[in-house]
């Protein structure tokens, strides 16, 4: 299995008036071609920032993102332009992520015009129509403006735009969380079909554990900027190790009668990732916290070749 | 809190310096010679030259500017008026109380009536009262204040003969100018109050208050107004600042010898120290008003209060 993209010790810190905000802290991940890595976490855990550093929409503070063996953080302007064709992004909000003053055709054509991947008007038009067909937008929307379309169709525009340059890697930043369940399922199916057809690698960012299970091959669980558990999807759901992962799984309501009688909850809420204390960042909420959790940086323990966890319980 | 006030006052210094520099530059490049203007065309060249020397008008641009600023910083001396040879301070203060009286009359009229009508308009949205208020507002914003002043003079002073035409000798003299100066700000205050109230009324917490069964009066004057007040406080503060320097034309219409008239005279006579002095004084006052606005904010909104408190706590 070839690794299309991987990171080494990736960090992104932001300066704030109250100190350094550790949005992404020492992340190591790999995504093979044609596979999906799900990134799960609650709001404020740094998953969106991670997604943006993966395609260098934001420059990393430290560490590297290796794409096909080259570090994207060292790319110059020209190399960046080439990289743009390989790595694209689908955004969360189908309303604010689409320029309201451009027609559907213009929106989908824009990346191809910017990157000059097509020659001639005719080819461009054909390509746009083909893309619209691919993502399931009827041809009659060619001249429509976004305000005439609903969230689901807008998100299809976002998908078409991301695919326009024939990328190998797409970061999907909560692409369905703003949509209703029935529409959500349509978009999820579309993304999965496209992956099969085009061998796309996805980084699928979400807070929804049931969605991520459905679409991912591997899953990374994040908490306050750190990766706390990293495993193959089935392994993670059958045998969650980290207390936070367990709590997350436990917290999802199951739409079946009697699926769960006792809701066990963890107490407390997410702290801010500004100047975090050393040690496990989950420790203040963890029911199993021990004194050593608070002291040193937690090591990642390799439980099986495909399952890592950062918790003192498994030292 | 005190820390915030002191910080704000210190931040004022570069702004005042910047203003003085901008104005000094403009005045420097204004054609005409203050000494010649003062002595008139009949004066001899020697006399003009002597006066020029005396007033320090012969130096280069930077020399004169730094002289001027140096005197302010070192001696607190804002210079003397070329025209009257009085200290600038005296000039400003003998005139200022007229402007202040006019501005206060206007600000009281515009704020009190503005907030009242604004609330009425918002609470009874789309009613006849709302439509009438909106129409009057539109009319007031479309009127040049000097024309309104002239019309008021024609109606109340010429035809009805109930109020004086011009002057500043008694309190009655300030009624017409006060209303004239208030007109525009009144319209702004009504508009702002109305839209701020309407925006706040739609907030979830107002709906929550209603769902709790809080009486409608309490919902409007407690939950809504207190939150809607923020932009209104800002507007009143800004209006007050503008009023102090913005009554120039109204003073002309009603013949009030306030600071506005002083400034126009001084610009015409190239009386640079007075022009700069006046405007720095007004800018300083406006900043104090802004500061007061922010303090009122902190009083109304606990979130802003908390900002000041935490800042202090972090530093301490």
């Amino acid at each position: 299995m070839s690794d299309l993209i991987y990171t080494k010790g990736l960090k992104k810190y932001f300066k704030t008036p109250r100190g350094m905000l550790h949005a992404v802290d020492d992340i190591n991940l790999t995504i093979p071609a044609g596979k999906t890595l799900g990134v799960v976490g609650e709001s404020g855990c740094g998953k969106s920032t991670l997604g943006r550093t993966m395609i260098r929409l934001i420059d990393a503070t430290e560490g590297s993102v290796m794409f096909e063996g080259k570090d994207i953080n060292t790319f110059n302007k020209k190399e960046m332009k080439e990289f743009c064709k390989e790595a694209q992004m689908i955004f969360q909000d189908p309303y604010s992520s689409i320029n309201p003053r451009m027609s559907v055709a213009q929106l989908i054509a824009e990346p191809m015009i910017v990157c000059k991947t097509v020659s001639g008007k005719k080819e461009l038009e054909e390509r746009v129509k083909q893309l619209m067909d691919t993502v399931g937008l009827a041809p009659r929307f060619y001249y429509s403006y976004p305000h005439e379309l609903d969230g689901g169709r807008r998100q299809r525009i976002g998908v078409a735009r991301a695919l326009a340059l024939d990328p190998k890697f797409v970061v999907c930043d909560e692409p369905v969380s703003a949509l209703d369940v029935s529409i959500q399922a349509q978009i999820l199916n579309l993304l999965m079909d496209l992956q099969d057809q085009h061998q796309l690698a996805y980084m699928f960012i979400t807070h929804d554990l049931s969605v991520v299970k459905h679409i991912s091959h591997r899953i990374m669980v994040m908490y306050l900027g750190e990766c706390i558990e990293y495993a193959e999807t089935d392994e993670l759901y059958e045998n969650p190790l980290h207390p936070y992962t367990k709590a997350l799984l436990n917290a999802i309501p199951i739409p079946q009668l009697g699926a769960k009688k006792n809701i066990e909850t963890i107490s407390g809420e997410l702290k801010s990732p500004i100047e975090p204390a050393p040690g496990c960042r989950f420790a203040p909420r963890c029911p199993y916290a021990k004194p050593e959790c608070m002291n040193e940086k937690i090591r990642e323990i390799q439980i099986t070749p495909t399952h890592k966890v950062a918790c003192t319980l498994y030292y | 809190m005190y820390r915030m006030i002191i910080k704000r006052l210190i931040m004022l210094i570069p702004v005042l310096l910047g203003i003085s520099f901008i104005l000094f530059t403009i005045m420097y490049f204004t054609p005409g010679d203050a000494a010649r203007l003062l002595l008139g065309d009949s004066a001899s060249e020697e006399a003009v030259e002597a006066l020029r020397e005396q007033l320090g008008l012969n130096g280069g641009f930077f020399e004169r500017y730094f002289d001027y600023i140096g005197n302010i910083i070192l001696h607190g001396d804002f210079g003397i008026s070329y025209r009257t040879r009085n200290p600038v301070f005296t000039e400003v203060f003998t005139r200022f109380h007229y402007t202040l009286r006019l501005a206060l009359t206007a600000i009281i009229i515009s704020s009190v009536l503005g907030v009242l009508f604004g609330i009425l308009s918002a609470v009874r949205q789309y009613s006849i009262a709302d439509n009438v208020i909106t129409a009057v507002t539109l009319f007031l914003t479309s009127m040049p204040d000097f024309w309104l002043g002239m019309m008021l003079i024609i109606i109340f002073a010429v035809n009805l003969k109930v109020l004086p035409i011009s002057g500043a000798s008694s309190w009655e003299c300030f009624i017409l100018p006060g209303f004239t100066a208030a007109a525009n700000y009144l319209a702004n205050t009504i508009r702002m109050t109305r839209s701020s109230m309407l925006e706040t009324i739609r907030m979830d917490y107002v709906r929550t208050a209603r769902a709790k069964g809080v009486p409608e009066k309490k919902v409007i004057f407690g939950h809504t107004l207190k939150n809607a007040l923020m932009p209104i406080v800002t507007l009143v503060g800004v209006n007050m600042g503008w009023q102090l320097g913005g009554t120039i034309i109204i003073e002309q219409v009603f013949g009030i010898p306030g600071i506005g008239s002083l400034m126009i005279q001084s610009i015409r006579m190239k009386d640079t120290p007075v022009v700069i002095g006046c405007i720095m004084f007004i800018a300083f006052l406006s900043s104090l008003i802004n500061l007061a606005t922010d303090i009122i904010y902190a009083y109304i909104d606990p979130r802003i209060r908390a900002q000041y408190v935490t800042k202090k706590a972090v530093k301490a």
Partner: protein
Amino acid sequence: MANEKLLEIKDLHVVYHTDEDDVYAVNDLTLSLDKGQTLGLVGETGAGKTTTCLSILRLLPDKIGEVTGGSIRFNGKDILGISEEEMRDIRGQEIAMIFQDPMSSLNPVYTVGYQIAEALKYHSTEYKTEQEIEKRVEEMLALVGITPERKNDYPHQFSGGMKQRVVIAMALACDPKLLLADEPTTALDVTIQAQVLKLINELKDKLKTAVVLVTHDLGIVAETCDSVAVMYAGTVIEGGPIETIFGGENHHPYTVGLFGSIPNLKVKTKRLSPIEGLMPDPADLPKGCAFSPRCPKCMDICRTTEPPKVFEGEHMIKCHLFNMNKEVEA
């Protein structure tokens, strides 16, 4: 206790008059809820769930929202018929409501203690003096798991989950008979959502409050509700005790679609089976059954005639499919 009707909505119609169109938000909605029971109101955005709750409290936006037909009976009283004064007594005291976004449901310029006390001040006969009210506020805060000393704090000093706890304390302060909870956990993170749901579950059992829980999440319904009403385009298309919705054989095609759209944690599915198409425009509803354009089992009659309510014991389905051999309500 059971079978004592607390809330009965019959044939409710609500229209919003906007500048451009009349929006038919609620159409022919019928619901009922027994004392102390929990009803799950399920549906997607625009199904009319929130509008239904606001109609119960008579808090539809002034001059825009209008109830054009039907009746709402609460505890035997005709809510649509009583005066505004009487209605205000009901609000907060007998029916309380929790809104979706805890961040904006609390007034930023008042302390949380004051906001909880407010409902008591205007209604309660039990807590009259200042001390009694003060004590009740502290009691309520403790009940939702917040230390009573925090009553003098302002909303901005609380996190999202804590704010929602304050909102719950505020709603329950007067011991209402009915709590309308409009997506109370949607704005919260999963772990916090679990905490708040647990709290609501515990409190409703303890205080014997009836709850209408509005949600789009079938999982939440399964965990908390006694009965369910599935809404689509402003009307209930399927309803009944929870067992009949989550079990049983006959279901409305929309309900089937909803279940098919959710990726299930417990069952491995390769592909989701979503409902095709979109929610209809409530200003321009299709003729006949509102779901017919999206329905995989659509028949000719569905496009022309409004489907009848078909009953199977307490289980109701509003669909032509089941019309054939069951008793029909005229």
